[in-house]
Every structure is written in C-alpha cells, then in structure tokens.
C-alpha cells in the first residue's frame, strides 16, 4: 500500500470524509423525517453541514473555574473512540481487520463516549450539567446492559465473538432478524438509550436541564460532541445491520453497498418514527421499565436461544 492510497483511505474513502457525509446525511434524514411526521417542511440537505461549520467558526466559551485542558480532551477522546470503533465496523463494502473478540472491543469503544459525557457534566460545574451528568450515568447503567444482553443473542446463535463470524453464521443459518425479532427490538430500544434519542433523551431533556452535560459547551467542542453522537448513530445502526441482516449482501460489491444503504435508511426511519411518537420518560420510569421488564425479557430470550 503506497502512501497516497493510505491517505486516501484514511481521509476520504472509506475514512473520515465518507463517514462524515454518512453521519450528517443520516442526521438530515432524521430531522427531515421528524419534521414531516409533525407536518413541517424540514431543513434542506445541507443544514447539518451548515450547522457544523457554524459551530466550528463560533467563539469557544467556558465558565470560569473549569479546567480547559480537561474539558477540551473530553470531546476529542469521545470523538476518537467512536472513530476507532468505526474502523472495526465494516461500513458499506469495506473489509476490516476482523478477529475473535472485536465485538467486545467495539462495544467498549462505543460506551466510552457515554462515560465521557457524564464526566463532561461534572467538569463544567453547572447545576444543569451535573443533573444531566447524573442522569446520563443512571441511564448508562440501564440501557448498556440491555443492549449488550439483547445483541448477545446473535453471539450465542453464531457461536462467534467477531462481527465477521456473526455475519458468516448468517449465510449458513439465514438472517437472524426473523428468528430473533424480539432480540432485535430489545437491542433497538437499548440503542435509543445509548444514542440519547427521544423518547430516552433524558440526560439532555431541554425543558428540564436545558442541554444536560453539554449546557456549558460551545463552539468547536460542542460541534465535536454533536458529531460524536451522529457517528455513534452510524456505528450503532450498522452494528445492528451486521448482526441481524448479515447475509443479505456480499462484500466488495456495489449491490452490497446499495442494500446496506437501504437498510440504514430504513433503520433511521424506524428511529425517527419512534422519537416522534412518544413522550420523554422520567428517569425512574426508564430504570423501572428496563430492569423490571426489558432486561428480564432479554435474559429469557437468551436462555431460550441457549436451550434451543
């Protein structure tokens, strides 16, 4: 591999620029869809780009008494961890280094931003940030378990700890979406909590805690946080697609890319519809729902898969 090809891979395709376009495209789709569900026109396609550019150009203000280095590191670290996770997820028709256990690595890397999000709340010392941070940690302990338990149904069936292994298993056994539809739905609800989308946008509920931990952030740091969240959406959705629809396309083919895109858009539609349909839950209601209902359900689901 020569240096130009390497740089092209890192920066443009399938690296940074492509992922950015994908993330912002999904963001636009989300906003447009919710707007249409609510009877509005919605933003034009370049709106997320414009927002991002504007934020990068804005002045960066932090409250007095906060540690500048620490607060700058937080969004950078979370951005970096999501980008690293995306390196291991085979987006579109890209081959990635796959090894036994890369699933665990991805799960870890995807949960790092949530922890940093909580730290951001404590680092900026605003009352709303602290409440938002506490909420995000509480939410982390409920949805993360749910997401992991639900998606591990596919690991049990495929008997593999790598994404490629799960995908290969589906070529033999058929897509997991049909036999494991409940597991898929549970994983999706876990993902909603992970992405802090409505109706589980409790840590950043704007009628209560303004913007949660991000209240005091502005400018480039806020832009990085937002970008992280959008990239997390891409990562989470493609993880679900690989685990549940893995056999629908071949790698390294244009048709594969198209099928993958269609699936991604459909999943985004589902997420948008869900966030348009429900009111935000209260944090205690969420925890009760998760630990009394959804997590026992996913445990039962896994138990059933093991016995079978």
């Amino acid at each position: 591999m020569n240096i130009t090809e390497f740089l092209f891979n890192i920066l443009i395709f399938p690296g940074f620029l492509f992922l950015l376009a994908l993330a912002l495209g999904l963001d636009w789709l989300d906003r447009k869809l919710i707007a249409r569900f609510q009877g509005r026109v919605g933003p034009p396609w370049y709106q997320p780009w414009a927002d991002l550019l504007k934020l990068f150009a804005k002045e960066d203000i932090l409250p007095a008494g906060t540690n500048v280095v620490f607060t700058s590191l937080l969004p950078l670290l979370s951005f970096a961890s999501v980008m690293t996770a995306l390196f291991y997820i085979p987006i579109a028709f890209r081959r990635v280094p796959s090894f036994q256990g890369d699933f665990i690595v991805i799960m870890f890397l995807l949960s790092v931003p949530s922890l940093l999000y909580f730290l951001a709340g404590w680092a900026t010392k605003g009352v709303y940030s602290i409440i938002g941070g506490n909420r995000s940690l509480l939410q982390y302990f409920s949805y993360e378990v749910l997401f992991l338990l639900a998606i591990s149904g596919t690991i049990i069936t495929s008997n593999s700890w790598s994404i490629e292994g799960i995908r290969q298993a589906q070529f033999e056994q058929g897509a997991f979406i049909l036999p494991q539809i409940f597991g898929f739905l549970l994983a999706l609800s876990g993902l909603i909590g992970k992405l802090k989308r409505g109706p589980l946008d409790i840590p950043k509920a704007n009628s209560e805690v303004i913007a949660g931990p991000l209240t005091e952030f502005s400018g480039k740091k806020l832009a990085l946080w937002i970008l992280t969240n959008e990239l997390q959406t891409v990562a989470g959705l493609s993880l679900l697609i690989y685990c549940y629809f893995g056999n629908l396309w071949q790698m390294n083919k244009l048709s594969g890319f198209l099928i993958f895109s269609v699936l991604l858009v459909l999943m985004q539609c589902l997420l948008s519809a869900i966030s348009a349909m429900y009111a935000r839950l209260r944090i205690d209601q969420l925890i009760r729902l998760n630990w009394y209902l959804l997590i026992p359900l996913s445990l039962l689901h896994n138990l059933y898969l093991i016995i079978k």
Partner: protein
Amino acid sequence: MSRMVIPIGPQHPLLKEPLSFLLTLEGETVMDSSMRLGYVHRGIEKLAEQRTYVQNVVLTERICGICSHIHTTTYCQAVESLLGLEVPQRGLYIRTLMCELERIHSHLLWMGVLAKNIGLDTIFMYTWRDREIILNVMEEISGGRVSHAVNTIGGVRNDLTKDQMNMLKESLALLRKRVEELLRSIEKERSFKIRTQKVGYLSLDDIKRYCVVGPVARASGMDIDLRRDAPYAVYDQLDFEVPLMFEGDVWARSKIRVLEAVQSIHICEQIINAIPQGPVSVKAPRRVPAGEVVSRSEAPRGEVVYYVRSDGSQNPMRLKVRTPTLTNLVTLPKQLKGLQMADVSVVIAGADLCIACGDR
C-alpha cells in the same frame, strides 16, 4: 445526599415567560421551592389611572397576549355598567364569539406547551397547527391575530359579514375533527398518560383553601364556571355543559381543557346560527359618572376580576386587575413538593401560567 439549589428562570427553556423558581433538590427530588414574579411587571394598573377610559381599552388588551379579548371584555363590561349602557344584542353575540374562539386558541396553545415540556413534540406541532385555524379566523374577523381590538366601550367594532360566517363555519367543522382527534390521543397515548397522571395532585379541599379557579379547579371536582353561575354577555341564552373531572392531576387538567374546547366549538356554532341582526355598538360618553364596580368573567384560565372606580372624570381613579394565573401560582409550591425534577416541567405547564397576566 447533598442538597442542591437549582434556578429555573427567569430564562429557561421550560418557561415561555419570565418567572423565577428556586428549587432545592435532593438527588432528583424537589424538597422546597420559592418563587418570584415581577420580571414583566409593567405597572398597567398605575398607567391606567393616567389614561382615559377609551385609551384603557387598548391598554387592558396588552395585559395578556393569549387571552387579550377577555380582558377588554371585562373592562368594557365594568365601564358600561358604570355608564348604564345597554349593549346591542348583536354586539354581545360577537363579543361572546370572540371569547369562545379565544378559549379554544388558549387551550390548544396550552396543550402544545405541555406536550413540548414532556418531550412529545408531535402533539405540540399538531395543536399549534390547529391553533393556526383559529388565529386565521380571528384575523379575518378582527384584523389582528393576537391583539384583536374587537371591543370598545358600548359594543364591538367589527360586524360579522356573511363571508366571515361561512369561513367560520368551515373552520369550526375542521377544528372539531382535529380537537376530537386530540382528545382521543390524550386519552389513549400511553407515554403521555404515564408522564401526566398522578402528578401535581390538588384535592378539592386545596382548591377551596387556595381559592383556585378555572380548569385547574374543575379538574379537581370543583364545579365552578362563571359563564354558567353568573352569566355575562349572552351566556344565559346559550346551551353548554361545564365538564368536570375528579382526578385532580395534570392529566385531568389537560383532558378538561380539551373537553372545554369541544364545548366552545359547540357554543360558537350556536352563536353563528342564533346571531340577531341589528347594530353592534352604541355611542358611549367620554365622562363616566362616579361609582365603583366589580366585573367578573371566565377567561380560559378561570375567573378574571376587574375593579373600576370612577371619580367622575375622564380617567378611572383605580383599575384593579386580578388574573386567574395568580390563584394557580399560589398552589405551585404545594404541588411541586416531593416531585421528581422531571415532573417540575409537567406541573408548571399543567398550571397554565400566563406570567404577563400575573405581573400586569
């Protein structure tokens, strides 16, 4: 657990108007709260003493941006009774029509704010979309979307034309469909119900002790409505029901408001069918004889009280305005105590605050 004091307001996304709360939190639970008003205090009562009765009609309209018409209605009623004027029936009918349109508009607006505060933006957009129908009708009739300037001492300014009545009829038919759909949604939608039920409970006894009025009182089972109990304008000639609920929580308040909007549509339809022909206003003298009067009417949020005292000159000697928001505000510390932080927004929205009214 350590206590934390968090400010809500004067600027906060939850509040649409400035009001300051200081909540003492223990974890996520509200232990104590204190409240301050006055961020939009404009001294309207004092200002009114320096203006003529005619100018005050426009001034009282500026007290509130949502229920502007009811303020002028109550004020004009007071001055008319001091003058001993008999307002023509057609004028009274148009006045009542605007009151009811405004009630629908206010209730829909409020419903949207509640839905927005619990994160159900879809309902917010739908109710504000439906509210736009009413605003268009009101603009067509009066020439203003919010400040209608329909009332004048001695009657109303605008007459209803045939075209306007037809437009009104069509809009009301569409609106009835939409409001009934909204009623079904708040009865059925699960996440809405679990967020609003059993939140902000007020018992019948609390209602009496705090002198609460309007939909908040009616949601706790207090059967009080000035339109029926002390009819003004032409309410004694109209047929309507006063919905009543006994749960006393925010969900009951939201349902009762939508039920009232349905009743208001019913009243508007009656008015269109029954409106008599004739003049809409009589000429009023500029000087008002000395005397005092207390005028009451039922605003969308409850009882509005105007006290006007005249000393025989062109200017009122004292104009006192009591708006329903104040009665609801008094109960807030009681409602908030022991709640989750997330429910604060629900309770504050449920009280249907209009701070500009409260401050005056």
